[in-house]
């Protein structure tokens, strides 16, 4: 049973159709790769699910409930977590305080309880020196913190938008195993956007390919990469 579904999800920005009639679903415990060339509509698709854009047409269902009109903060509360392609650390809060937010607001924890939970989560992800300002963190730590912020809302579904960008290959491997670990331990339904094919191959159970806002292929990574449309649209186009 899929936990998240979109039906003919579409958004137009003026004349540009950034996401076009996308039917998509996610299952708990599974990691789906969302790939496609620059400007394919991947980030916009995540923003539609997170509620940052209102779709022109189509709908989003979580657990069978239509959430198309729901506000972003409510979606966080009902279990939609996401990270950002352009990272958004809250620079006037410390590392641990950044992570506390989800516990405080999505899960309604008290401040002391949220602090304890955030400390545990940070330790689970290998983050230390938790009182640091975010300006003193390196890129791997920032990315882990962004993951922790998304996990702090106690998500059922989790979207990771280019988590590995800016990481070297060792760091990517570490992130990959972290994402696999939390997917299993928290039984998450995960959507990952990545440009590096090696990451997609290692991390995902299946793949959806977007181009010009449309789904042009989906299925197992091995099959999808052989698809002609995918090769001409994506792999042929520079990768």
């Amino acid at each position, binding site marked *: 049973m899929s936990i998240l579904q979109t039906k003919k999800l579409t958004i137009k920005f003026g004349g540009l159709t950034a996401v076009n009639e996308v039917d998509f679903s996610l299952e708990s415990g599974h990691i789906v790769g969302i790939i496609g060339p620059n400007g394919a509509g991947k980030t916009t698709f995540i923003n539609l699910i997170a509620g940052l854009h209102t779709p022109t047409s189509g709908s989003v269902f979580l657990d069978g409930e239509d959430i198309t009109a729901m506000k972003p*903060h409510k979606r966080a509360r009902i279990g939609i977590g996401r990270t950002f392609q352009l990272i958004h*650390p*809250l620079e006037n*809060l410390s590392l641990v305080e950044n992570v*506390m937010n989800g516990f*405080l607001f999505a*899960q309604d924890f008290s401040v002391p309880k949220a602090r304890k939970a955030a400390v545990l989560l940070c330790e689970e992800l290998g983050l230390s020196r938790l009182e640091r300002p975010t300006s003193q963190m390196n890129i791997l730590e920032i990315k882990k913190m962004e993951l922790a*912020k*998304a996990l702090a809302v106690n998500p059922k579904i989790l979207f990771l938008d280019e988590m590995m960008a800016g990481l070297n290959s060792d760091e990517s491997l570490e992130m990959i195993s972290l994402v696999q670990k939390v997917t299993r331990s928290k039984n998450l339904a995960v959507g990952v956007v990545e440009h590096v094919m090696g990451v997609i191959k290692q991390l995902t159970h299946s793949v959806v390919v977007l181009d010009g806002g449309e789904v042009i292929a989906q299925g197992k990574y091995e099959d999808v990469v052989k698809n002609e449309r995918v090769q001409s649209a994506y792999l042929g186009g520079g990768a």
Partner: protein
Amino acid sequence: MKKTLNRTFLIIGVLLLAAPLFMGPYAQSVARSVLMYLMLAISWNMLVSSGQLSFGIAGFFGLGGYASTLAIVYLGMPPILSLVFAFILVGAAAWLLGLVALRLRGMYFAISTLALAEIFRVIIHNWHGFTGGPNGKLLPKLIFDGASVPTYLLMAVLAAGTIAFSMWFRRSKFHFAVTSIRDNEIAAMSTGINIYKTLLMVFAVTSAVQGLVGASFANMYGFVTPESSFNMNYTLLPLAMTLLGGLYTTWGPVLGAVLLGIVGEYLKLYIPYGHLIVYGIIIVLVILFMPNGIVGLSGKLLNGFEARKKGEVQL
């Protein structure tokens, strides 16, 4: 270190309450005005912690003054009760206005608060039958019949309450919510923060405090007029005090209000309106050289000191 600081400030608080024992009536009236500005500055600083700049302090201050005065004149309300009434009425008004104004951001929100204050003034100026128009209204008598010590103590208690409220605010969920909103609204909402509701609550409560201060002021001096009650000073001075003392903290505005309040009082004696020039110069200097105010500066020094004690590297 923080604990010792807090204890120091608690002692200062006790001294403030005991102050009338040592002060003459003139010193008490200066202290009262410092306490008033302190409340305005603290409340403004709470809203600005969310990144929303309000230029409407004088508007809510004046509205509170009129609410209290008119309630006493027309309904015969006891003065203390009229302060509570002003607090609630101004809070409710700010909530309603915030429903619209808080859809705006940045410059647009700031200008809309300035416009609101001006609209209050113009309405009150022109509603002769009810508000007394340009002549304003006189109160039948001053609060506590003008007795200096109880009036001072009332202000000290209200100020202590405002300080305590701000200290709570800065440890509560509100601290996390407003700081996140100031840093990045998209990131804030994706962690479950209801931005609109948070801002509405903070705007309503801080405006209510400003209304309460305006009501106290009216009851201390016994009259309201559109020109005096909506004077731009009530917006600009708390702003200067907060900038000087330090944004986003409880003690910044306290420190700023004490320093500028006392300095301003002296300057007023020597050069009429000279204090305004000095405030202007201070704002410019602080923004240029000390963007985190005195508290930020001392915080930096303290942190540097503690870090060196622990043997950490300072950047």
